[in-house]
């Protein structure tokens, strides 16, 4: 392993802008990492990822509720098997408690480690309205302003539409999710949707940068500015301003209800989409459904200093918890995105390749995509493919 990493370091010095074998992803996720780490990146030297103790990284792990714990256990199993130099700091959050102490511990842990992998934390809306969504609290406290989701059709999965490839960038901290509500008069509730210039500019900038790095041709802003003239009007205006700085990328806009109609009839017209929070929720779920369901798509939340990875549609999956039928693909692909972020490209490629090979070539599918396999069978197959790939692994 030592010789291997020496070769890798050498190749990095020789090809400073190539990074790992997944060249593109370096530039994308590297920019969000740079701030206080790897300052030498700017001078052109590429040093190995900043790992603190004995070359191993520490990542915060939040199991969450429903299928979260079992899927994350599988992730740990695969990581252990593949000798990934990542240690997980597990922080449990009990969604039944009224206080936010658990959540604050989790947030502190993420601030310490910089990266997290999480399952969804259930929001019991039978509790008092003052108990806010924990997931939302995490996103706003850490200012994870960009939610990125890449929807790609997988050849092995049967869907009505083929060859979909859409990137969705969703503003993650404000909009309708500001959690500012009050009952002005008995029986009348007001909920505030906040749109700010700063956040809109920031997310539009992120979208265009990402589009350029990935070589995408078009960015579409999704809005409802004909009705919410000031709010979404501001968002649209900010997108247009940023678009003028990227003349190589086409910019257009579409109203959200028309967007959903187009997505179910002609999804191939979309390339990169950027939108405020709630529309992002709708559009990302529609797209996830189009490519095969919630078990297939990974999602990432990026801020300037932190990154949190999870499944794209953030489902708790209470009804299938503990039954060994959940699809581990989304969570495993999310963990690969995390490894890319940590610059552990070899491991990321290896695991991703095994996951996709299982999905596309072996026909071993879980129930959500029409198969009869169990979660553990799928994970075992993935590990077998990793082992046959020739890397040093622990005993199966």
């Amino acid at each position, binding site marked *: 392993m030592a010789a291997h990493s020496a070769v890798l370091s050498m190749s990095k010095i020789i090809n400073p802008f190539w990074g790992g074998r997944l060249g593109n992803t370096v530039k994308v996720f590297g920019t969000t990492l740079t701030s206080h780490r790897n300052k030498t990146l700017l001078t052109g030297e590429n040093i190995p990822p900043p790992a603190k103790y004995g070359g191993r990284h520490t990542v915060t792990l939040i199991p969450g509720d429903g299928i979260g714990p079992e899927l994350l256990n599988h992730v740990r199993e695969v990581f252990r098997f593949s000798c990934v130099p990542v240690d997980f700091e597990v922080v449990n959050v009990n969604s039944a408690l009224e206080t936010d102490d658990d959540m604050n511990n989790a947030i502190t842990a993420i601030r310490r480690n910089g990266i997290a992998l999480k399952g969804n934390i259930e*929001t019991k*809306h039978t509790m008092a*309205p003052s108990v*806010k*969504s924990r997931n*939302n609290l995490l996103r706003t406290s850490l200012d994870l302003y960009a939610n990125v989701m890449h929807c790609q059709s997988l050849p092995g999965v049967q869907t*009505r*539409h083929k060859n979909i490839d859409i990137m969705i960038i969703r503003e993650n901290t404000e909009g*309708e*999710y500001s*959690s500012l*509500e*009050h*009952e002005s008069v008995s*029986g*009348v*509730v*007001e*909920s*505030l*949707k*906040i*749109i*700010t*210039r*700063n956040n809109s500019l920031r997310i539009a900038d992120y979208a265009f940068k990402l589009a350029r790095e990935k070589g995408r041709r078009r960015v579409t802003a999704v809005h*409802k500015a004909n*009705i*919410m*003239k*000031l*709010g979404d009007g*501001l968002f649209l205006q900010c997108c247009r301003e940023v678009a003028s700085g990227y003349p190589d990328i086409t910019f257009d806009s579409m109203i*959200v*209800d*028309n967007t*959903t*109609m*187009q*997505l*179910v*009839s002609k999804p191939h017209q979309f390339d990169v989409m950027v939108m405020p929070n*709630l*529309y992002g*929720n*709708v559009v*990302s*779920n*529609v797209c*996830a*459904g*189009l490519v095969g*369901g*919630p078990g297939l798509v990974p999602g990432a939340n990026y801020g300037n200093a932190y990154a949190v990875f999870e499944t794209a*549609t*953030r*489902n708790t999956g209470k009804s299938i918890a503990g039954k060994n039928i959940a699809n581990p693909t989304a969570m495993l692909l999310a963990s690969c995105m995390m490894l890319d972020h940590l610059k552990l490209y070899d491991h990321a490629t290896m695991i991703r390749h095994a996951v996709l090979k299982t999905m596309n070539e072996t026909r071993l599918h879980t129930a959500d995509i029409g198969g009869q396999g169990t979660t553990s069978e799928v994970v075992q197959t993935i590990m077998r493919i990793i082992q046959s790939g020739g890397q040093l692994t622990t005993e199966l």
Partner: protein
Amino acid sequence: TSPVQHETFPLRGTVTLIPGDGIGPEISSAVMKIFEAAKAPIRWEERNVTAIKGPGGRWMIPPDAKESMDRSKIGLKGPLKTPIAAGHPSMNLLLRKTFDLYANVRPCVSIEGYKTPYTDVNLVTIRENTEGEYSGIEHVIVDGVVQSIKLITEDASRRIAEYAFEYARNNQRTSVTAVHKANIMRMSDGLFLRKCREVAENYKDIKFTEMYLDTVCLNMVQDPTQFDVLVMPNLYGDILSDLCAGLIGGLGVTPSGNIGANGVAIFESVHGTAPDIAGLDMANPTALLLSAVMMLRHMGLHDYGNKIQTACFDTIRDKKVLTKDLGGNSKCSEFTAEICRRIQDMA
């Protein structure tokens, strides 16, 4: 001028027809021809709606249109032009405010013969149409920070929930699903949900479920057959009803009805005015025709409604006479004539 005599009960069989703009007039006359062929007991009263400034400077619809609608209680409307920077709000908004059209009902049924990737869609979206995110209350708090207010009231939520359950009962539907985002918007969608739950108590024969908006979207594009009647606040309704229209083939084949207080109901086609094909006999009257069928059912004239709908679907399934947007190259008049012929053959 002599005072207008008002009937004390709605004249059965009178409908206020608002042809609209663009292709509106031609599709309206197509519908009238088909109704004539079916010998439906409907008397049409054509009215035009343009915004006029009433006393006090408020924008309103012409008084003769309002009077006709108040009398007949039933309206059929073609597409209306939305003027940009005309100084007055859109006509649809004016109509909504004038008659307190609180429920927008859109039944989405797959049309055999018009192929989409989704078959067997059979659901109804019922959308609250007066408040929610479309209250139009927005402020600039400081430069660069805008706040939009979403309003949810107990009364409106209860009213729409009651309508949804009544509709389900009257149309032999088995379940009603409330769509919400109460995990994020705890108080507002929480209130909506509570009202739905309360109303559900009085309709034990109908199954009531709740589902998050994102879960509905996710499941809708994978398996739309699991949904029956969906009831939701304004914004979610807007998005979902258009999503469902996309599943069955778009706005050119989707009917829509707006139910108001005081028994008023206005049925409409929700597509645009299509100015590029206006007057060229190329328009597709299906959306307006299916809305008219919805109207007949609302009035209790189910037989006529079924006859006309069958004739329309048979024509589309046969694929011999189709307008351009449905994949053929027949004229609007030919399509209309074919449907009339089928109706007459059925008699």
